């Protein structure tokens, strides 16, 4: 008879012995039908768990792949956005440079062809409260600018008058725009010879006053400088007639003139050297 206390104290060793006997029996009798049967029963019990777990792990694997793909796509998206932003910025810069280049080329072309004594200048400021009245240019006396010099702007081949130099300092000057209500210049209807007074309205258009009632002026006629008074050289384009009507007093015709230049947008101008022999600035 084996004492209970003996078994209790040595239960670990006894269990190990038992497990070892079982394991070695299995190992040594691997082809024995009993062992194979035992294995088959064990497999029958655990195989469903293995199958379901395998499926679950497959889904997990797929999810993992999708998450990684999502992160990769997100990263690519971020890089592409960055690249897109950079390219957009470059495109904007390129367009701005192209536009500026065209302006400068046009100015240079005009200067070479027609007004050899002109000076190109850049608009550096505007009268904020009176948008249609004055602009500030970055050239002054030092560049040979004189008072009342004509200021032109526009696209290549479409240069037109925008105003005249009103105030002058050494390094900059202020230009009174044609649209200013104080601006009044003699102008002529191109091809028809009608001379009249072009007056600013503090609005984006001008009014051609004191046209003869018999004038043949019509919509679409081009208005150019008359060259009278010695301020501006003749035949500088100004704008186009968009409406003709009888003035309020009934004695003259008047016409609305839309300038060729958009007074909101020009950034480069050409300042013509005024011919001193032509005359002094009007008071």
């Amino acid at each position, binding site marked *: 008879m084996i004492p209970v206390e003996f078994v209790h104290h040595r*239960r*670990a*060793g006894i*269990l*190990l012995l038992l*497990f*070892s006997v*079982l*394991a*070695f*029996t*299995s*190992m*040594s009798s*691997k082809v024995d039908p009993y*062992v194979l049967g035992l*294995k088959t029963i*064990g*497999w029958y019990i*655990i195989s469903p*768990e*293995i199958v379901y*777990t*395998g499926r679950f*792990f497959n889904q997990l*694997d797929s999810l993992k792949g999708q998450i990684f793909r999502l992160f990769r796509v997100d990263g690519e998206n971020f890089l592409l956005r960055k690249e897109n932003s950079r390219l957009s910025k470059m495109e904007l810069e390129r367009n701005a440079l192209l536009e500026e280049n065209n302006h400068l080329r046009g100015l240079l072309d005009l200067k070479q062809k027609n007004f050899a004594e002109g000076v190109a200048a850049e608009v550096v400021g505007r009268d904020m409260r009176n948008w249609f009245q004055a602009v500030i240019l970055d050239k002054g006396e030092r560049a040979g600018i004189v008072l009342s010099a004509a200021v032109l702007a526009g696209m290549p081949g479409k240069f037109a008058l925008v105003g005249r130099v009103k105030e002058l300092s050494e390094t900059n000057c202020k230009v009174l725009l044609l649209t200013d209500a104080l601006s009044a210049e003699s102008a002529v209807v191109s091809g028809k010879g009608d001379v009249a007074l072009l007056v600013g309205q503090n609005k984006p258009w001008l009014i051609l006053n004191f046209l003869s009632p018999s004038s043949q002026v019509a919509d679409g006629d081009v208005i150019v400088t008359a060259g009278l008074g010695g301020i501006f050289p003749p035949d500088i384009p100004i704008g186009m007639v968009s409406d003709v009507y009888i003035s309020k007093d009934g004695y003259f015709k008047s016409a609305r003139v839309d300038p060729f230049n958009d007074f909101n947008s020009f950034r480069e101008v050409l300042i013509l050297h005024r011919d001193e022999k032509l005359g002094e600035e009007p008071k």
Partner: protein
Amino acid sequence: MSRFLFFVTTFVIGFYLQLFSDRFMSFLGVSPEILLLFVIAFGFFCGPVMGEVFGFFWGLTLDVMGVTLFGLNSFLLALAGYGAGKLRQRVASERPTAQIAIGLAAAFAYEMSALMLHRLFLVGVEREFLKGLLVGSFFNVLLVRFVFYLSDRWLSLWKVHQKEIES
């Protein structure tokens, strides 16, 4: 009842952890022997009986899943659990360095024993000893601390730890 529940739950969770590590953590065709580490941890924390019982049954599951020598894993894991339980009074298993040494020793002992048993029972079938030893050691060193920590928390949760020490 609580003891039975503990055994069943631990057995099932350990089995799933091994499946998980087989699937997602294998390297060069060798997966971590998570169950070996758990058996050793249980042996160290609760004594040889707990270690060898878990070792035998988990090993049996591995044998059922495998196609090689039936009984090999059940014997080796039971032996590992018993050995760890017997050594628990002599090794300060709570120290990280001791745990790493245990992991390395376990990998070496397991691979050596498996090789010997293979040679003994399966004539002509060679086991990849070196690869198993190197990758197994790497995994054991990597995971042994985590497994010991997890086992400690798990046993504390079931309050089995204390009961085993008292008994």
